[in-house]
């Protein structure tokens, strides 16, 4: 069981189970650590040392890696001064994610505002249209009534005499 897990034969489920057992039973953990130490000792004893150039190659590669993982300096501010503030890759990722989120939220909000604006315009036009209709109806009815009352003035004969509006001298029209 211990050797099987330490040498990497176990699958993920078996490994998880083994770790759980080690947590519950300290003697099992101690046995595992003892086997690991013995394996390390014997592996080092029989190890084949890599060529010396490989060591320096690996170290220089690791140096490049550590340079890559260092925080990136912000080169200049808008005025061209060199900024002392630094920003790490992790922070850059968060900033990028936040800016994408803000952009998406802004687009959604703008679409919402545009739709609301169109609806309001439609409502406003409808109200304006209704008001104009009502005003037109009122304005066309009022002078007609006034004229009707003035024109249908009482005459002596049965004939109805219309006086043309605005004419004092009166060209009277007679409707038979």
């Amino acid at each position: 069981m211990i050797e099987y897990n330490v040498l990497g034969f176990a699958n993920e489920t078996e490994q998880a189970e083994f770790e759980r057992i080690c947590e519950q039973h300290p003697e099992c953990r101690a046995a595992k650590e003892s086997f690991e130490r013995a394996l390390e000792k014997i592996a080092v004893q029989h190890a084949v040392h890599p060529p010396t150039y490989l060591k320096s190659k690996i170290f220089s590669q690791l140096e490049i890696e550590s340079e890559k993982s260092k925080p990136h300096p912000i080169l200049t501010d808008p005025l061209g001064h060199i900024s002392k503030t630094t920003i790490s890759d992790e922070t850059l990722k968060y900033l990028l994610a936040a800016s994408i989120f803000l952009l998406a939220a802004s687009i959604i909000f703008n679409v919402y505002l545009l739709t609301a604006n169109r609806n309001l315009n439609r409502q406003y036009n409808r109200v304006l249209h209704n008001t104009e209709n009502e005003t037109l109806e009122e304005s066309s009815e009022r002078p007609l009534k006034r004229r009707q009352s003035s024109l249908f003035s009482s005459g002596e004969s049965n004939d109805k005499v219309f006086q043309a509006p605005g004419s004092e001298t009166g060209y009277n029209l007679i409707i038979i």
Partner: protein
Amino acid sequence: MILNILGDETSAGEVLQEVFINSWRSIDVFDEHKCTLFTWLLNSSRHLALETLKSKSYAENRKSDELRESIQLHSNSKSAAVKMDEVGLKKVFFRLKGEHRVFIDLFYFQGYTLDEISVIEEMPLSTVKSGIRMALIQLREYLK
């Protein structure tokens, strides 16, 4: 370990470099409560070396190398593969009894699954499993 699996120093050097760089990048994943740093590196090395061994380009390169060797051959009594059995962990593991040694070689150093070993050795899966278990018990005794 890497040399035991791959059998040539150039490829082993490349894989070793990759192991260190990968470990450097994923050091946050390492949990000292789960295993020692040595075990972590050992298993990473084995995993990457087996991956390289199974990769198509490596297999093609190896085939052409073997062809070249077979042309030159018979002047050297020992092939590179045999020499690799005499170094590193393989030397230790190969002190196991014959049948157990075969199982460990196929499983640990060549990356075959238990099912594949069962087919290769023409044995039932249960026999292969118990063989591996016996080999590990032997190994434990040996390391004591």
